């Protein structure tokens, strides 16, 4: 055993017994893989910017952000993005009005009321809701929900058109429920048990603990969930492309057909616009606007989540 005894062991005994170039190569490869996602972001910017710059070289910001008509393929064309923005706003507002109450209620129930067994049953339901492809939601909105709305529309009024923002927005809201629910539940579960126990010790009921203790303590996480939900609603494409229509209208009336930013990109991208054409650049101009908006919201949401993690973890 152990031939190396004091003094006789040369100073080199703890040197590397054989070279290990492999370790460094592997670390390099792994880093390279990690850089693919950085390259993705760079690629997104690189694909958006040049055509968008070409677009803004010809169409001023004033016309783009101030114009109320979006008819890039007409003669003469008009490049006011406001109709796409009002449509996005309308559908997003509808979606949030569905997703936030239902999602928060679900999160509160799962975090504060449900037994482990009910959680085990209910959480997969929300996961299934999140796993259904959006094209299916779109199909459901157009062929089931819109006709239902039109049949049930009270009074003698017009009711929703065949394509309308109302149906698309509401169904999109259901799609986003799992996003709100799961992120909010994470935030609520992160609230330390000691806070709840303090309130219960003072005679609070479960409802008061939920509303006055847990909800405020989890607020930044819940806001993060809502911001992310807005970002998802703004970026959702298939539901609005199918159910909201293809007509860019400067309106906030959800009963009308409307075209969102994503809806325009999908419709224009579907047609094979020549690369050299100016029309082609409109996809990228709207795309850049969409990217900047969602990027800012995601960033805000990540910051908010970090904030509550810092406080409680």
């Amino acid at each position, binding site marked *: 055993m152990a031939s190396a005894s004091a003094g006789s062991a040369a100073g080199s005994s703890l040197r590397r017994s054989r070279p290990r170039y492999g370790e460094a190569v592997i670390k390099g490869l792994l880093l390279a893989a990690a850089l693919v996602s950085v390259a993705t*972001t760079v690629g997104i910017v690189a694909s958006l910017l040049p055509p968008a710059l070409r677009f803004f070289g010809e169409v001023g910001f004033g016309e783009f952000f101030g114009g109320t008509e979006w008819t890039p393929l007409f003669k003469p064309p008009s490049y006011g993005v406001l109709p796409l923005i009002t449509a996005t706003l309308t559908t997003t507002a509808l979606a949030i009005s569905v997703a936030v109450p239902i999602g928060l209620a679900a999160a509160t129930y799962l975090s504060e009321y449900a037994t482990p067994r009910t959680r085990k049953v209910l959480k997969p339901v929300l996961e299934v809701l999140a796993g259904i492809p959006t094209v299916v939601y779109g199909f459901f909105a157009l062929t089931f929900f819109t006709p239902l709305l039109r049949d049930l529309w009270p009074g003698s009024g017009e009711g929703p058109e065949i394509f309308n923002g109302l149906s698309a927005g509401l169904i999109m809201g259901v799609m986003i429920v799992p996003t709100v629910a799961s992120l909010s539940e994470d935030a609520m579960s992160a609230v330390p048990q000691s806070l709840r126990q303090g309130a219960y010790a003072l005679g609070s009921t479960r409802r008061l603990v939920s509303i006055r203790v847990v909800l405020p303590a989890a607020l930044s996480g819940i806001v993060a969930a809502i911001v992310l939900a807005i970002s998802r609603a703004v970026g959702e*494409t298939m539901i609005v492309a199918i159910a909201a229509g293809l007509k860019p209208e400067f309106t906030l009336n959800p009963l009308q057909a409307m075209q969102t930013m994503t809806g325009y990109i999908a419709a224009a991208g579907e047609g094979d616009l020549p690369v050299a054409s100016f029309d082609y650049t409109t996809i990228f101009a709207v795309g850049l606007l969409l990217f900047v908006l969602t990027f800012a919201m995601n960033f805000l949401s990540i910051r908010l989540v970090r904030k509550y993690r810092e406080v409680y973890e």
Partner: protein
Amino acid sequence: MTTAPARHRTENPSLAGRFRPLEPLFKGMLLASLALAVLFLVVLLSYVVTEGWDRLDPRLWENFPSKLYPERAGAQSAIVGTIYVIALTGAFCVPIGVMTAIYLEEYADGSRWWNRMIELNIQNLAGVPSIVYGILGLGVIARGLDLGRTLLTASLTLSLLVLPVVIIAAREAIRAVPGSIRQASLALGATPWQTIARQVLPAAVPGIATGVILALSRAIGEAAPLLLLGAVTHITFNPSGITDSYTVLPIQIFNWTKQPEAEFHTLASAAIVILLFILLAMNSVAIWVRNRYQKRW
């Protein structure tokens, strides 16, 4: 002794408590919200199944799409295309995603700005709308790399789209392997990579597999980016190579939904049932893997 009616009065000396109407009401509202979500799911599923029932027959997977004859139309090219796209997407995103996860969990020093940037960037990418990936695929992969509107372009684009999901799932699986295993291995004179390859990864495989399947099921249902990448055209043949044109089920469903005729909507429903069935099968496998190989640390 407290009598039952006294319970509803305010001054109650016993511990029985007074009736608080807001409590059950609040709980009822929370439950009603969840019930609404469950109801929605039930209605949606029964609607597509009943709508598509008449066309859930072999025509659907034996025939090709037809714009003129809904009674003869099928979705074979879309089903085959979906399988191709998913296989290729998995082949691209799994190695890159797992390698990234290993780098971030086992090698990256979190105090370095570039490692923090890589992490933040992945979180941000997870929230980028899928249609923006379509623009990336169009601008950089289809046009920039000149791969055209092919199966390869679609798979590469979807790989980038689900990469953050794979990375996040793989990181969780790797993190779940106890540190004591790593220490034991390193204390025996194993190198970091030996430790990862021989101990950490084998132990993390079930978790990684579960995450990968869930990520791929997201890719299967994805249609928006492919709208920009040429999947729209009406394809009446199966792809035979990675540079072929293609279509996939969600796109085929989209196309049929756009047709005004009710027959095409029936077809779309039938195709949705097939798509949901594939997703259900994949998720069942994921759950099975998770339960079967769960580690008892």
